């Protein structure tokens, strides 16, 4: 059920009036509501040879976690809508004639579905994805790396700490409904931005100043003071300013001005690295 984006559905209600000219209002109500029996129905699926009972509307990841089966995921959070960006949670499913890889955080369970969470194909690709994440963020969980036998990345370093999992953006938009964070740029230039004017108003009050987005960030790169006071390094302050460290100089600036890290070891490792 988390598949539907709660934040957006509320926004859409006022949008609908624009289009209602062509559509009768009765039809909308029919579409919007699912029958209660559908939600409660039990679905039997098979994960790694183990029978798992799931509820219709659940995703494969939710079903697996409910049965204590481990699937790694970086951009997934129970309280937020699924995003499907980190692709670590890819699993192999056998559906009909062929097997394919799907993102388990988004794929809905269906009766008789066969899932392999650690098949050879999955592990092979998961390893490459982990290596790619390592190029951006050098301090990926050691247990995870060991599990998939990744010692070091074969690819060039592209360090900027943020892995663009989008958890902070979704937290800000969906839980806090503040819409302070967003994305800017496209492709390899994509970044997280903070809307400075809004941030100045919202961030200092958010979670009593503790900032909820920091609690969901897997990399710990959201600086505390930074977001509370708004961007202040650099002489010119553009309206939309990257909230994350995005290049070597900027990283140093951010680390320099930030005293309070949620994960002290991040700072430690960084000084060691220097």
């Amino acid at each position, binding site marked *: 059920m988390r598949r539907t984006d709660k934040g957006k559905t509320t926004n859409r209600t006022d949008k609908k009036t624009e289009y209602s000219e062509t559509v009768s209002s009765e039809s909308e109500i029919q579409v919007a509501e699912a029958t209660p029996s559908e939600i409660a129905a039990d679905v039997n699926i098979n994960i790694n040879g183990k029978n798992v009972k799931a509820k219709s509307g659940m995703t494969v990841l939710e079903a697996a976690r409910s049965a204590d089966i481990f699937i790694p995921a970086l951009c997934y959070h129970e309280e937020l809508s699924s995003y499907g960006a980190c*692709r670590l949670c890819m699993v192999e499913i056998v559906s009909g004639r062929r097997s394919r890889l799907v993102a388990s955080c988004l794929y809905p369970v269906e009766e008789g579905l066969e899932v392999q969470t650690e098949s050879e194909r999955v592990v092979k690709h998961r390893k490459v994805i982990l290596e790619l994440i390592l190029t951006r963020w050098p301090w990926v969980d050691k247990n995870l790396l060991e599990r998939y036998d990744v010692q070091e990345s074969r690819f060039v370093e592209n360090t900027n700490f943020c892995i663009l999992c989008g958890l902070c953006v979704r937290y800000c938009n969906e839980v806090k409904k503040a819409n302070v964070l967003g994305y800017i740029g496209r492709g390899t230039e994509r970044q997280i931005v903070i809307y400075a004017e809004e941030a100045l108003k919202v961030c200092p009050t958010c979670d009593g100043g503790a900032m909820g987005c920091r609690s969901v960030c897997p990399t710990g790169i959201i600086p505390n003071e930074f977001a509370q006071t708004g961007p202040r390094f650099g002489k010119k302050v553009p309206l939309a300013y990257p909230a994350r460290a995005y290049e070597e100089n900027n990283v140093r600036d951010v680390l320099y001005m930030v005293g309070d890290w949620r994960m002290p070891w991040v700072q430690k490792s960084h000084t060691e690295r220097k």
Partner: protein
Amino acid sequence: MPRLKSAADLEKLRQEILSRINGKRIISVTNGTDGRTRGSKEVVQALIQEIESQGLKEKVQLRSTGCHGFCETEPAALIFPEEICYVGLKPEDVPEIVSETLSEGKVIERLLYQYPATGQNIAKESEIPFYQPQSRIVLGNNRFVDMESIEDYIALGGYSALAKVLSEMSSEEVIDIVRGSNLRGRGGAGFTAGVKWDTTHNAPGDEKYVIVNADEGDPGAYMDRSLLEGNPHSVLEGLIIGAYAIGSHQGYVYVRQEYPLAVENVSIALKQMREYGLVGENILGSGFDFNITVHRGAGAFVSGESSALMASIEGRVGEPRPKYIRTAVSGIREKPSNLNNVETWANVPLILNKGDDWFSKIGTEGSKGTKIFSLVGKVNNTGLVEVPMGMTLREIIYKIGGGIPGGKKFKAVQTGGPSGGVIPESLLDLHVDFDELSRAGSMMGSGGMIVMDEDTCMVDVAKYFVDFLCFESCGKCIPCREGLYQMRVILNRICQGEGMEVDIELLTVLGEMMRECSLCALGQTASNPVLSSIKYFRDEYEAHIAEKRCPACVCKPLTTYYIDPEKCMACMICLRSCPVEAISGGKGEMHVINQEKCTKCGTCFEMCPDRFSAVVKISGREAPAPLKTPAG
């Protein structure tokens, strides 16, 4: 113009238009975007004035049409009923055309297309070798309709399919015919249109949408633009038929802002349709209501992906979402939405008019009908080519395209744009259809076909497409964003001569991971140019990495320019044009390139007269030492 209230009204109007143009001589001048870049606007302007001043206004009808296909000969004019084709027109030619051909029917020899192989002048368009092997069932209508005239389209039998559908057929019958024709989506993936329509038709809910995808972004592909510019009504008629079959009352035309003429012509077409009662409420008195909105895309390649396109229509960022629930069930505003490509929609009225049997007779077992390709690159005849599915690449490139210019050797053809792959010479006899192309590691894509000759470096080509995608990917998922970034780094270092032995393996590992793990079709196919070039041209990658040699002498860091002392005539041309004064020598004195100064800009290579060809490119070895020490 009173609104058309029934199919009979439409037929009456058609007869009236036909009687009006009966006996007139008609001149169709190509005036699409490609023609306009070559000055067709001035030609059309001159024709209007000249026809007026020679008093032929009653006897001649001028049509300013979209591209006819053979873009490089534009501005071209086609004169009916004789079917005389003039090419490469200039405003100065116009008075003669009007006085000789339009009023007397005489042929002006010097304006005809000259076939380079025989030097013969060809008068009739259908006899031009470029057009001869084609079957232009969709694009061919561009010749008969003025871009801004609904009357021309109706005279051609336009909207008769719509009238038939609305008055005689149920939506299930329409879907059955489209499914029976086995029409596959022309946008790239080749999903059967009838099945998609059926899914949307059967999806729960009354609010459904139909969409024309005209967000054509492949480098070197422009058939959707030409169709939408030249014959927008055919696309819109298809859309309304689809809407009726699916049960939708709102349609969108998602067209790139970069196609201003297409946007303009579609908007004009919609205005006319509203006047004639072909869109809006109670279309042709059938009780069926349907509205169309033109939505201009803001220039993102990824917005051509269906779920990204729908997000863009909703007003959100054009980013794909996973399609485990198809857009046919949950698309725009989570309502069932059916999206098809421009070309797919343009095929629909034809199928309804001529029947699914007629359509499924054209093409191959798995792919029916014709496909428009944009044949570009190192080929003699460039332009839009519409051929039945199953024609071999050799026929397309050599028969229609006229082979490779300059007597060069063919190396590869890239199909499907950045999502497609390269196809080597050994596969030239491949029958082009959806399945064969994907079996060869490429794909149909929207129909781009870039021909490459021996002077093309395949690593460089792969690098070009990866660069393009690095910028055009949305950047949401890690495989696509980080995978492309790393691919670009690796390809760059190979082209710089710093490639490592593991690089080919790394590219393969990345490519395979992207193919299976990326979120949308852009990422899943993004590695195709790299993987297919490794598959067929592995030796070139190896030459770059192991020998530091670029076989085609394209990669600048691996190439040196050298003046062959045996051929150099000491003419001073290259010496004078060198921007960094790296060439020494003098009048009558051998020219020598100072390799330390040389910036490898290639100017000397371009400037050296063809009859000498003294400047050569060398890769993989040092330039030979000069014969004697140059003075100074």
